């Protein structure tokens, strides 16, 4: 009996993406896998059931997961969904490994082999599987659009018969994948963009997009391309230089995150107080607590006539492309191990080993074990 | 021939040759080499005069040899250059 891959409809609040798109379905099928999908699981991403060729549709969650070997998901499964997972099945998704001890325990209880794509090692070969990058691109782009739409001014300079509009000043804090995309989007719209990141390499990257780098004199390169946490003094030095840039900005977009930790608070209450009337902050780090002290995840707060947006799940705002990219990440991750309809994973492969969260009833990822304790 | 005048001619001719070649694209290096190769085929004229005024059989023999070589230089040089430069034809439309 050939390998069966199953995808259920995502049930998390506001989640519009899907882990299987028609294109990847076709490719999986070509590798000899059987595919099962919950009815209308792609509809929120505007993929209708008839678009999927060679996929079996099941009416509900239980029917979808029953007997499946590999479960493809976008979000981590809810307790109810975990209960529906076939014992010993393989689960792949953005499983938020640092979020919940209970979830890890539940997965292990069902002896699920779980891969959390957040843990993917950032080696060259893995770039095509890197869901953080692909979804980060979507998030950064959406951040730029939200900023432009919510700004009460034009982004571009416009010389008109009724006077000249000066371009808006946008400050992007954090120039990772999402931050760079936000820079690019705002630049395209004509704003004057400044950006800041603690990593030293970011300067060149920021400038390569035609934006200006805000030099604060603090560098925080961490391992594996991620940023390390900053010391208290460093934070103070950074804050001082940044405060000036923040005070001049019409729009501030923050994307600074540290994996597995609460996002650093970069924009303090006091800095908000010095901002222009009518300025806005779009805090992309809202999900992990926010880079602005006043951010309310998922909410829109007004303080001192400054609008602070803490949008959640940004990629879900463009579900068609976000799903496409994510589904391809999954395909690229899994396909090397599918041969003639059977799964043969090389557990010693650095990508497999690095991404593996749980196996045989235990949490196996070192860093996650460190942070979450054994579960 | 007046040596001084010849020197002037040498100078001007060298200047001319130099000016013509300065800043030629690499793509033309080979055709130009071939083209200038053709041009010094003019030596055939000198050879003809030498043969035409040859007095002894030895001189005639060498002269004959010279004319044949010079003519080959001119004729072969022309054909080769012309064929090479033919490549540029289609692109110049």
């Amino acid at each position, binding site marked *: 009996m050939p390998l069966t891959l199953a995808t259920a409809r995502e049930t998390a609040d506001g989640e519009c993406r899907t882990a299987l798109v028609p294109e990847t379905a076709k490719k999986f099928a070509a590798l000899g896998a059987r595919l099962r999908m919950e009815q209308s699981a792609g509809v929120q991403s505007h993929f209708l059931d008839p678009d999927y060729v060679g996929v079996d549709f099941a009416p509900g969650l239980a029917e979808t997961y029953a007997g499946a070997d590999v479960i493809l998901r976008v979000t981590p499964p809810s307790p109810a969904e975990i209960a529906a997972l076939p014992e010993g099945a393989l689960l792949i998704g953005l499983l938020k490994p640092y979020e919940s001890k209970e979830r890890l325990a539940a997965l292990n209880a069902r002896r699920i082999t779980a891969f959390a794509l957040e843990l993917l090692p950032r080696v060259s070969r893995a770039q095509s599987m890197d869901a953080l990058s692909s979804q980060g*691109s979507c998030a950064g782009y959406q951040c730029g659009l939200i900023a432009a739409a919510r700004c009460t001014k034009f982004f571009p300079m416009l010389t008109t018969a009724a006077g000249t509009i000066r371009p808006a000043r946008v400050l992007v804090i954090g120039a990772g994948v999402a931050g760079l995309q936000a820079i690019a989007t705002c630049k395209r719209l004509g704003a004057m963009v400044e950006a800041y990141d603690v990593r030293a390499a970011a300067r060149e990257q920021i400038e390569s997009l035609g934006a200006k780098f805000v030099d604060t004199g603090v560098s925080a390169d961490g391992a594996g391309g991620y940023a390390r946490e900053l010391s208290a003094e460093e934070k103070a030095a950074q804050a001082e230089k940044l405060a000036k840039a923040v005070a001049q900005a019409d729009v501030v977009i923050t994307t600074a995150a540290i994996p597995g930790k609460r996002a650093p608070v970069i924009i303090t209450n006091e800095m908000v107080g010095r901002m222009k009337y009518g300025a806005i902050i779009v805090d992309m780090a809202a999900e992990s607590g926010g880079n602005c002290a006043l951010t309310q995840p998922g909410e829109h707060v007004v303080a001192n006539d400054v609008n602070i947006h803490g949008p959640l799940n940004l990629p879900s705002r463009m579900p068609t492309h976000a799903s496409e990219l994510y589904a391809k990440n999954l395909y690229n991750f899994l396909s090397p191990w599918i041969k003639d309809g059977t799964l043969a994973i090389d557990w010693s492969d650095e990508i497999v080993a690095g991404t593996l969260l749980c196996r045989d009833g235990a949490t196996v990822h070192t860093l996650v074990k460190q942070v979450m304790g054994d579960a | 021939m007046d040596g001084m005048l010849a020197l002037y001619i040498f100078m001007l001719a060298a200047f001319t040759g130099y000016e013509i070649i300065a800043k030629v694209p690499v793509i033309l290096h080979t055709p130009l080499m071939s083209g200038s190769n053709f041009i010094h085929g003019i030596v055939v004229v000198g050879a003809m005069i030498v043969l035409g*005024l040859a007095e002894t059989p030895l001189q005639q023999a*060498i002269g004959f040899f010279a004319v044949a070589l010079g003519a080959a230089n001119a004729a072969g040089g022309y054909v080769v250059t012309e064929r090479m430069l033919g490549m540029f034809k289609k692109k110049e439309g």
Partner: protein
Amino acid sequence: MTLPLYVQGAWFGGALLFIVGLKGMSSPASARRGIVVAGYGMLLAIAATFLIPGLQNLALIALALAIGGGGAWLSAQKVKMTDMPQMVAIYNGMGGGAAAAIAAVEFAKGDAHGLVATTLATLGALIGAVSFTGSCVAWAKLQGVLKKAWRLPAQNAVNVLLALLSLGLGLAVIGLAPQQPELVIAFFVVALVLGLVVTLPIGGADMPVVISLFNAFTGLAVGFEGYVLGNPALIIAGIVVGAAGTLLTQLMAKAMNRPLSNILFTPMVASGPGEAISGTMKEVGAIDAAAMMRYAAKVIIVPGYGMAVAHAQHKVWEMTSILEEAGVEVKFAIHPVAGRMPGHMNVLLAEAGVPYDKIFDLEEINAEFGQADVALVIGANDVVNPSARTDKASPIYGMPILDADKAQNVIVIKRGKGTGYSGVENALFYTDNCRMLYGDAQPMAGEIIQHLKSMG
């Protein structure tokens, strides 16, 4: 000998046509017209020569012309395009031989010409003879008749010795007028041998430069014999070619990134085997890069992070437009992870106004590199590193790469020897068909544009 005005006038016309023709040949647009003009000049000069009163041996002359000219004409018509260089060599050698022969006859006649004329005659004979045998060797090598590099133990010393010997004999010939036949014969023999010995050790790759040098030699020889014969048309044609040829030789040597002395005196030896990455990086100039692309049918541009750093996108697009106007098909190949963020290259190319239909991703274009005449890599490195295909130890192993190395020629624009994001060496840069164009991508693209424009 005073010649009738119509002969002199015709020669004058010939010289004029040569200059105009050569001028035409120095630009691609008018090159073809140039050779035709020069051809008319030649016909004019030869025809006029027949009209010299008192010219004897007319039948012999006609016969020699027919044999030499006809033979060369036919063989030149038949030869394959790829065999052209050796044909240039052999025809050039013949010209040198002719010049030397003229000197020989003058020596044989023993006419007193005065010191200047005798000196020039001797000098012309020397370089004509060297050009003759040297060109023959060049021909033989390129034609594959002579296969192995034929190298004396103390090659350079022998060269110098022979050269000194021939010069000495030449001086003797000049000094001891009227010439003694033995001396003259010895002089010629040594000169001919010198041409052989100098040329034999030179490798096939360097031959074009050597041929160009001999071409300049022949030009000079013709010019000098022209003085001896009192024929300004010969002088002008010869000296113009001598000057042009000398400059051309230098340009060619520079384009190969080898000083001329290097080519003549220290022939290249094959590089030792067994290094991780073998071969050398070969530099190229902007003008060469421009010419390679201008006369290509298809060019694929691979931009990378360096293009972004240099903000070269506008220049790159301008370059593309010029190439397209010239009928070259140009495509952009974007690697999935080129740059430092997803879509980095797209953002920049869009900013520069590159239409979407010229932009292709890895899967769409990889098969096309094989048909591309030139792959122009601008500030990209990791994404065209072939070690990703083969070297399991490489940090980028397994990453799909753009097959730029499959193109006929690869030109890489980067500032220096810097590595890419992954920090590994790139074997592509060492391959035979790859040329490095060092410099910041923006001014470099600018230079290429300038040269492209000058090519019309």
